[in-house]
């Protein structure tokens, strides 16, 4: 009996290992609808955040939205190509501060939480975007 149980469990485990491919970060963020919703809530949060709202005055928000959605997709999967300029080029000349960078990250965390993105998935996206700190801040 125990022998049969073992075989059963082993087969089930192997089935798991071979049958399902682990989803990439983009998929774990909820794919296209998920990332759309995260970016939408990020923009809502930014619009209510006095620390950064002035920075977005006069910005074409629809363009910012599609650019950001595409950027997140491109860094979390190989399903899209980000068409915009590099983070350094986009943000250079504005002297964005450490305070503002933290504010954007906080708003992004809040947006992901509102979408019930699991902690570990949040961490993975943040670890990728954190690398952009030096190309965005004080330039």
């Amino acid at each position, binding site marked *: 009996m125990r022998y049969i149980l073992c075989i059963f469990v082993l087969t089930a485990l192997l089935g798991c290992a071979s049958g399902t491919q682990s989803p990439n970060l983009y998929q774990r963020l909820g794919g296209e609808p998920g990332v759309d919703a995260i970016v939408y809530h990020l923009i809502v949060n930014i619009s209510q955040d006095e*620390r950064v709202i002035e920075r977005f005055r006069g910005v074409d928000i629809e363009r910012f939205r599609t650019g950001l959605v595409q950027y997140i997709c491109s860094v979390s999967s190989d399903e899209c190509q980000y068409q915009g300029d590099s983070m350094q080029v986009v943000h250079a000349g504005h002297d964005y*501060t450490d*305070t503002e960078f*933290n504010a954007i990250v906080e708003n992004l*965390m809040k947006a992901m939480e509102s979408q019930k993105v699991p902690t570990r998935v949040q*961490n993975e996206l943040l670890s990728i975007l954190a690398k952009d700190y030096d190309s965005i801040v004080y330039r």
Partner: protein
Amino acid sequence: MKLWAATLALTLMALPSLAEENRSRIIATGGASTVEGSAGGGIVPMAVLSGYGAREEQGGAVFVSRVRVPDYDLTSFGGSWSWRNRVELSFADQRLNHPTLSAALGVSDQTIRQSVVGLKVRVLGDILYTPYPQLSAGLQYKDNHDFFIPAAAGAKRDSDVDAYLAASKVYLGGFFGYNVLLNGVARYTRANQTGLVGFGGDLNDDHQWQAELSAGVFYNKHWLVGAEYRENPDNLSFAGEDDWQTAFVAWFPNKHIALVAAYVDLGEVATLPDQDGWYLSVQGSF
């Protein structure tokens, strides 16, 4: 106990008014307050500065902590202020109760008081955002106000300065997807039991480099579980001095409050063995 209550009341009163201004660093990146007042864990400082002020802001913290082991009872309270995530000034007032030791030595004094004034400067890096760790350098000036027992134990002086370098980094998703904190400190010191038993001694009267480490895993942004290790010099022939260890749980419900509970193992302290017990700390950030 009165001090406890007073500090706590002050903290709670200060919070609403001071919370008006923005403090932009991410939750938990201000750390807790060590028993010596500098931002860090419980017994090991970190490179992070207290409070949540980013580089265009300021911030700080106030705290009350208590260590209870079989023969000693330490209460520490104090505060710190950090400017532009660059400089941290801190203060701690420590009261050590040592009834067993007093009885053994036949002295009536039951407490030793020490104050610690700290300065910490962030040299480079950011705990979250730079690929290399945040690096800070610090000084702690310690003044032992009840030198009678330390002197009897062979300590050479009642005040001194510790210098340290701290490197801290949170690896986002670094531990099976969870954020992991690693922190290392090199401290140049000749303090006995962090200065509570004075500074220097008959075996050694020079500053030495000592290692301190802490590590933890964030279950989420509110909960950190980890451990600390602090190496101590061995300057006195009167009593061997063990290294200290803690295992802790820290809770950051929001950017204004932090609670830390820990199991502590101080080893042998001034001839009394097996000093392990608990640690509790409450911090308010502003």
